[in-house]
């Protein structure tokens, strides 16, 4: 029963020389090992980001929604006079 290494060389050696890696093989399939590495690195990054966020006093974990006018709040006064309808009728030219 040939060992693992022997079987490997039998498959990958041609005329005593190492078989070159073809480009199609070089872009190898993403293996389960690669995906495991990706998952671990992602988890580390997320944890680091959360730790960074909690250590920042100025940044809340969940930001408040963007400021909007509430029902009881007075609307902002317009700094300019609204244009009368008559000026729109004659093409907006006064």
């Amino acid at each position, binding site marked *: 029963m040939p060992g693992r290494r022997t079987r490997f060389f039998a498959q990958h050696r041609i005329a005593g020389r190492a078989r070159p890696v073809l480009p199609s093989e070089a872009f190898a399939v993403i293996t389960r090992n690669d995906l495991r590495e*990706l998952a671990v690195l992602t988890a580390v990054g997320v944890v680091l980001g959360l730790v960074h966020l909690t250590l920042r006093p100025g*940044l809340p*974990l969940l930001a408040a929604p963007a400021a909007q006018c509430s029902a009881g709040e007075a609307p902002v006064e317009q700094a300019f006079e609204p244009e009368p309808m008559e000026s729109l009728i004659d093409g907006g030219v006064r």
Partner: protein
Amino acid sequence: MNAHPGPGDMSSQPSLWRRAAWPARLVLAGVFLAAAAPKLADPAGFAAAIANYRAFPDALVNLVATIVPALELVGALALLSPWRRGGALLLGALLLGFTALLATSLARGLDVSCGCFGGADVTNAAETAGDPVRPLHLLRNLGLLALVALSLAEPRTATAAPATNVR
């Protein structure tokens, strides 16, 4: 197709992939370290830049603004470690996300700051303070994606061989 050639091929001459992948990884790691550092130093500015894209709910902007640079940092460091394939996959996924975000903002006609290498200047009222999003950014991301593909193209012999194959 065997993605785990084992240690036998290590004695052969370094292949073109191996020679090209090493500088590609160095460039990628440098770019992402340079991108992560200012974002980590000023997460509020980066959060403002992200909010301008109007792609995330307001509540999640701070989370994204701190997790994304951390992922960039981890991915860049992993590229220089034996976990280089995982790091390349992580940076590739990030680049795909960035490219999609840039493409959608260009398609929507948003005139916002890229925020690629740090946040917009929050003291400046203009949303485009800094580097406005341009099609050139898409081209740059495509180039970086090509470097990620080159890193992944490196045969496994040149990367860390699984411990089970080494005897």
